[in-house]
């Protein structure tokens, strides 16, 4: 089944991001890798929804997009040194 090959490639991409989270010399490096891994997981959830024919996995993908966006914006505010109410 060709979709399992696709999912293996995406899992390999996630491992590359994990390498950058482990090695990254500064905090913004790690935050970039977390952001990229969130977008990769959205694609992984979509492929999983296609192969397993479970519709709720696509809902998880949409929710993961928005949650990853809010998390990265909060981390960016923290790195700028601002309070969250500005």
């Amino acid at each position: 089944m060709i979709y399992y090959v696709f999912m293996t490639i995406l899992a390999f991409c996630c491992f590359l991001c994990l390498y950058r989270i482990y090695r990254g010399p500064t905090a913004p490096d790690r935050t970039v890798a977390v952001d990229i891994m969130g977008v990769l997981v959205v694609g992984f959830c979509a492929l999983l929804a296609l192969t397993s024919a479970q519709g709720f996995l696509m809902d998880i993908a949409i929710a993961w997009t928005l949650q990853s966006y809010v998390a990265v914006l909060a981390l960016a505010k923290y790195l700028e040194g601002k309070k969250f109410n500005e």
Partner: protein
Amino acid sequence: MNELIGQILIIIGLAFDLFGCIGLIRLPDVYNRLQAAAKCVTLGTGGILLGIFVINGFTSLGIKALLAMVFVFLTSPTAAQALSRAAYISGIKPWEKSVDTGLEEELKHDAVA
């Protein structure tokens, strides 16, 4: 026929994802990594979701895939821009061969005004 076109779109998206992650590993500083990875992975995941929409058509799963693609295209570049600005303000120096973007003068002007 729809399934074949969808699989070709998914393969193109996977190639963009893989090259973006290789850029995340190989490039020299935060700004280069952010530029390569954010652009490639946004287009790659958008390609995967568009392929799933083409395979499924206007069913529940296909419409949700289209909606997720719209959200990815809206949120990912915004997060990347906020993150690069935060990295510059928090004091990460660009790579020594980078071109000056003039953000420093703009931030000084903002602080004065």
